[in-house]
C-alpha cells in the first residue's frame, strides 16, 4: 500500500481541499484577489539620481530601483525577502514571458531600454530561458525608433512587433470589443508583464497600464470614442489577456502631464520613478493622481475640467469588470526612495 495510511481519509480530503483552494487562489490574478479581499498595493519608487549627471538612465541605478520596488511590492509575504524571491513568486521555469512595452512616443517617451534589460536579467535569474522572453509592441519600426534592437529566433531575448507574426484570424470578444489578438500574446507567452509609460492622452485622459493593451489588438482605432470607455475595461476582460497578466511595471522615468500620446518635450518631466503593482486599475488610479498633481503644479485644469477624465479606470473597477481597485481607500500606496 502507499506510504500515506497515517493520514486519515478526512485529513486527506481536507489536505486536498486546502490544496485545491490554494492552487485556485494562486491562479486567480492578484488584482482580482485584492479586489475581493485586501487593499491593492502600488509601489511608487523614486530615485532622483536615476540619471546621474547625464540625461540617460543609469542601468545600475534602475536595476537597484527595480529591485527595491519589487521587494516592496511582494514583501507583504514574509517569505519574500530578496528581489529574486519576488520574481520567483511571479514566474516559474518553463514560463514564456511577454514584456509588453509602449513605443508609440519614440525615444522621448517609450518604455526605457535599461529598465527592460533589468527585468530580463532578473527573469533569467529566476529561471526563465533567454529565448522564452519576448519584448514586444504592435509595430517593429516603432520599437526600433524607440531604441529597441529587433531580435527574432535563436537563443536570445526575442524582440519584435506584432507585425512580424500577425494577429489571430478569429475574433476575441467581450462587451463592446471584438478584436484579433496578437499572436505574440497568444502563441509566444503564457505570462504577461505590462511595461507601460506614464502619460497624458488627449482622448482617454491618461494612458498607463490598462490602455497599453490597445497594442495587443489589430483594431485599436475603433476603441477611442467616448474617452475609450468602456472599451479599455472590456478589452482587459478578454481571458487571453486577463489570465496572462501578472504584473505592471510602469516606466515613469520620463512622464507627460499634457499633450500625449505623442512625445511633447515641453509637457514632459523627469519623474525618475517606477510604479509597480499587480493591480493595473490601482496602478492607473495612482498614476492618474500623479499626472493631476503635476498638471496642478503647472497651472493646468484637471482632466475632469477638460472633459477627458479617464472614466475607463472607474469602469474597470465596477461590478461587471472587477479588474482591480480604483477607490483610494482600497489602495495602499507604498512610496520608496532609492539609497543616495
Amino acid at each position, binding site marked *: 500500500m502507499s506510504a500515506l495510511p497515517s493520514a486519515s481519509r478526512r485529513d486527506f480530503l481536507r489536505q486536498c481541499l486546502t490544496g485545491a483552494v490554494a492552487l485556485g487562489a494562486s491562479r486567480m490574478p492578484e488584482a482580482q484577489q485584492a479586489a475581493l479581499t485586501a487593499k491593492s498595493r502600488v509601489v511608487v519608487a523614486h530615485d532622483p539620481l536615476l540619471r546621474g549627471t547625464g540625461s540617460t538612465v543609469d542601468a545600475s541605478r534602475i536595476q537597484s530601483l527595480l529591485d527595491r520596488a519589487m521587494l516592496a511590492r511582494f514583501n507583504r509575504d514574509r517569505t519574500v525577502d530578496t528581489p529574486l524571491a519576488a520574481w520567483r513568486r511571479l514566474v516559474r521555469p518553463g514560463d514564456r514571458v511577454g514584456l509588453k512595452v509602449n513605443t508609440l512616443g519614440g525615444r522621448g517617451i517609450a518604455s526605457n531600454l535599461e529598465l527592460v534589460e533589468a527585468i530580463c536579467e532578473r527573469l533569467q535569474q529566476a529561471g526563465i530561458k533567454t529565448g522564452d522572453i519576448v519584448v514586444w509592441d504592435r509595430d517593429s519600426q516603432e520599437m526600433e525608433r524607440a531604441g529597441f534592437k529587433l531580435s527574432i529566433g535563436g537563443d536570445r531575448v526575442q524582440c519584435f512587433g506584432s507585425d512580424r507574426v500577425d494577429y489571430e*484570424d478569429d475574433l476575441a470578444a467581450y462587451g463592446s470589443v471584438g478584436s484579433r489578438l496578437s499572436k505574440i500574446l497568444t502563441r509566444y507567452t503564457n505570462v504577461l508583464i505590462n511595461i507601460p509609460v506614464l502619460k497624458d492622452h488627449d482622448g482617454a485622459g491618461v494612458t498607463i497600464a490598462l490602455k497599453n493593451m490597445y497594442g495587443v489588438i*489589430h*483594431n485599436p*482605432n*475603433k476603441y*477611442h470614442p467616448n474617452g475609450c470607455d468602456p472599451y479599455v475595461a472590456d478589452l482587459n476582460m478578454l481571458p487571453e489577456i486577463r489570465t496572462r497578466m501578472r504584473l505592471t511595471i510602469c516606466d515613469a522615468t520620463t512622464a507627460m502631464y499634457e499633450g500625449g*500620446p*505623442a512625445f511633447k518635450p515641453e509637457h514632459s518631466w523627469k519623474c525618475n520613478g517606477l510604479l509597480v503593482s499587480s493591480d493595473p486599475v490601482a496602478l492607473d488610479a495612482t498614476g492618474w493622481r500623479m499626472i493631476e498633481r503635476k498638471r496642478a503644479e503647472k497651472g493646468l485644469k484637471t482632466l475632469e475640467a477638460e472633459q477627458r477624465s479617464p472614466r475607463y479606470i472607474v469602469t474597470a473597477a465596477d461590478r461587471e469588470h472587477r479588474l482591480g481597485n480604483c477607490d483610494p481607500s482600497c489602495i495602499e500606496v507604498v512610496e520608496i526612495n532609492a539609497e543616495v
Partner: protein
Amino acid sequence: MLRELVRSQGERLPTNRSPRAPLDRRSFLMCALASGTALGELAVPACASPSALSSQSGQQTQNDEQFVVEAKFYEKLPNKKIKCKLCPRECNVGDKERGYCGVRENRGGIYHSLVHSRVCAAHVDPIEKKPLFHYLPGTVAFSIATAGCNVNCKFCQNWDISQSRPEQIPADYAPPQRIAALARQFNCPTIAYTYSEPVVFSEFLMDTADAGHQAGVRSIVVSNGYIQQDALRQAYGKMDAVKIDLKSFSESYYAKVVTGQLKPVLDTLVTLRKMGKWTEIVYLVVPTLNDSDAEFRGLAQWVKANLGTDVPLHFTQFHPEYLLKNLPITPVPTLERAKAIADAEGLHFVYIGNVPGHPAQNTYCPQCRKMLVERAGFTASTLLIRKDGSCPFCRHLIPGIWHA
C-alpha cells in the same frame, strides 16, 4: 459556389481569395481560371486579383510610404491636433494617432491618407452584385477596395479588410491610371469602389474617377453614405452612380449595431438626389433588429417623401457573420413582408436580394406590370427596355441608365 457568390451584405468579397493571403503569379492564374469557370455559369468574364495590379516587371515590394498622401478633408487644431472633416464622426486626432477608420493618420499636425493606390482587393464583378439594377445591367465593374471603414457594423462580411489597418493586409500599389487601364483591359465600362468603405479612401477614389473618365470608364460607388456634405459633393460628385447601404431606419440601431448615425445617411441620400446622381438603396434585413413593420413602413414613407417613388430599394437577406453569428438567416417571408409594405406605400421598384431565383429580383414596368429585366443570379438574362429607356409594351419611361 453559387450561394457563396450571391451573398451581399454590404458587398461580400468573392471567396476565391482570402484578403490576408496574397497570391503569387501561379496562384493568380489558377484563381483566374477557376473563377472564370465558376463565373462562366453566370456569363461573367474572368476575374482579376490584386496580383494582376502589379506591374509586369514582377511582384512589387510594399513600401508603406508610397501610399501616403495628405488628406483632403480636415482642419488643423492647436498642438498639432487635427479634426477630420470627412465623415460625421469628426475625429479629433492627436499627433501620431489615427482616426476611427484606421487609415488616416496625424503626422506632426498634418493629416494623411495611408491608402492612396493601396488596393487590397480587385475583382471583376457583375454590376448586379453591387447591387445596381437600373444602371448598365448585364455589364461588369472593375471592383476595388482598400482597407478601412468609418463604422463597425456587427454583421460585416468583409470585416477582415474593413476593420483592419492597411499595413495588416496585403495590398498592391495600383495608381489611378493603372486601375483605369485595367478596367478597359477587362472590358469593364465602370470602376466600382466597394467591399470596404470608399468614404475612407476618398482621395484615391476621386483621382481614380478622374483617370477613369479620361480613359472613357465610368465610376460607381458602394457606400454607407456616412460622409460629411462637403466631402460628399466633392468625392461622390465624381461618381456616375451610387449605391447606399441604409442599414436601418432607427438611430438606436445605428448607434448599437453600426456605430454610426442615421441622420447623416438620410442627408446623403437627399443630397445625392439633388445632385442628380443615379442612386439605389440597399436595406439589409437583420432578424429581430431592424425587421418590424413600423420600420419598413417608416423607411418607405421617408423614401417616397424625400426621394420619390422611382428610387430602387433592395431588401436583402442577412447571413450570420462577424459579431452577429447568433442570429439566423433572414427568412424569405420577412423580406416579402418588407417588399409588400414598401409596395403598398407606392414605391415602384422594390427588390428582394440575396435570394437566388426569387421573382422580386426582376424589374417590372410600374404601369403595365410586364417583366422588363429578368435576372438569374447576378446576370441580367433578359433586358427588354428600349434604348430610350422606355417600356417596349406601354412606352412608360423606366428610370435608370439602361444602355451605355
